[in-house]
């Protein structure tokens, strides 16, 4: 495992970059979600996530998951993509966490194998947990897959998030790619020079040194960025152009989202 560290991290970087590229393609499609005003998308999908958290009935959460799948299909998002990136990953992580609950939750016993008892309550709680996570992550992924990052930021600003917060989100996103590129280059050059697999301690030292170099370089860049911003007139508050208009369809969409969320929360109470 320790020998693969460098490779897996470099792969991780490449993956992160390609993931972002994916999102641009889907965001350009003319699917249902893409046609809605981004603010409606943000508020609507968040309200569905909230509903999934509020409701207590498995059936309702399953229905919300169905809504997510439907939205995906209508928005030209490949279900295979969702399966690979979201559903299987969540199943793996949350599934593992939820599994013991099936056996140790007190309640009416349904099955018995030796010392292990499966309880009805245990099954329900595990299912509820996994379903909730799947639904929430699916909805959030839909939001991000169908919306260019710039639009997400604009919507957040329109929803009254403080300017500085939005500016920081925007810049951080930018810097992540800069950092990842720089780090990948550093690793690439190290990989080509590496003769064999390094012992753990040496790798740790190298990781710390890499992190340090990255940090210094990026802090320096941030100073320069600040100067560049000032040079172009920045004086403390980022002024932005809002080009978002709500059409009738957007209002209808918003209403539908909110109603669906409220209905789900009410039914599942």
């Amino acid at each position, binding site marked *: 495992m320790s020998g693969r560290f460098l490779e897996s991290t470099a792969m991780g970087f490449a993956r992160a970059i390609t993931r972002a*590229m994916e999102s*641009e393609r889907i965001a350009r499609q003319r699917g249902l979600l893409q046609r809605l005003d981004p603010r409606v998308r943000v508020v609507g999908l968040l309200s569905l996530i909230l509903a999934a958290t509020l409701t207590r009935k498995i059936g309702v959460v399953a229905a919300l998951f169905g809504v997510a799948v439907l939205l995906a299909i209508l928005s030209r998002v490949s279900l295979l993509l969702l399966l690979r990136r979201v559903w299987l990953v969540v199943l793996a992580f949350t599934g593992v966490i939820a599994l013991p609950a099936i056996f140790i939750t007190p309640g009416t016993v349904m099955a018995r194998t030796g010392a292990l008892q499966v309880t009805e309550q245990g099954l329900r709680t595990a299912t509820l947990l996994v379903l909730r996570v799947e639904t929430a992550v699916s909805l959030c992924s839909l939001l991000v897959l169908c919306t*260019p*990052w*710039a639009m997400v*930021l604009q919507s957040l600003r329109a929803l009254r998030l403080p300017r500085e917060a939005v500016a920081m989100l*925007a*810049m951080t*996103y*930018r810097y992540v*790619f*800069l950092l990842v*590129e720089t780090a990948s280059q550093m690793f690439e050059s190290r990989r080509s020079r590496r003769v064999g697999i390094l012992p753990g301690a040496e790798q740790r030292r190298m990781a710390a040194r890499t992190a340090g170099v990255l940090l210094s370089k990026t802090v320096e*860049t941030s100073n*320069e*960025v600040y*100067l*560049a*911003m*000032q*040079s*172009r*007139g*920045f*004086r403390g508050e*980022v*002024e*932005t*152009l809002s080009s978002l208009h709500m059409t009738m369809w957007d209002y209808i969409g918003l209403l539908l989202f909110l109603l669906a969320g409220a209905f789900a929360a009410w039914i599942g109470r």
Partner: protein
Amino acid sequence: MFELREVFFDYDGVPALQGLSLDIAKGERVALLGANGSGKSTLLRLLDGLYPAAKGAVLFEGAPLTAEHLQDDSFTLPFRRRVALVFQNPDVQLFNPTVWDEVAFAPLQLRWPKEQVVARVDETLRLMGISALRERPPYRLSGGEKKRVALASVLVLDPEVLLLDEPTATLDPRSQSQVIDLIQEWKGSSRTVITATHQLEIVEDIADRIIVMEEGRVAADGATGQILGDRELLLRANLVHAHRHSHGDVTHSHPHVHSHGKHEH
């Protein structure tokens, strides 16, 4: 347009400008020539009002560029529009989500009306030939494209003074000549262009006057032809190096300048 009197500046104790004085008139095309570390970039930043001089005065059309003065919006807003700086590293200048947003940043900060911003940005993108890139995030551009976006992001303001920090460094030959062509277009206009560079071969095309800098001071100041002809000066300022080669028993030594593709001896 610019006057500097005995200007000193240092970075946390490391001296960068040591008693520099010079004048630049409107409409001049000047090249700041000097090796790395000679203080060219620092000078450009002081001219753009980004750093305060530790000692001495920096004046723009007679008005001092000091901290207090730049707090005053009635001075700053016109100043930022009239004077523009293009940084050496384009990544530093590309911090908006899309190319369109990047070019729109400056006019928006200067509070131009919305319709004017949109019109001007579209026009600038077209003039620079990058309209196709408008929705692209800046980190997915090539080196040449980034440079063009960086240039567009300041040209959108139609500035009177352009400060260019190593505009052709790290560019491929085609992008380099594109940038040089752009600078040449401004010859004869009222635009003042001050370019910092260490590449001798482009200087003839982009400047009529050369200021040679050495260790934070002006080492020489004169017309392009005159300075480029002074080999001793160039050697001293570390802009060319002595190159030795031998034919049999005889060793030649002459100043040598590297450039892309051709060698000048």
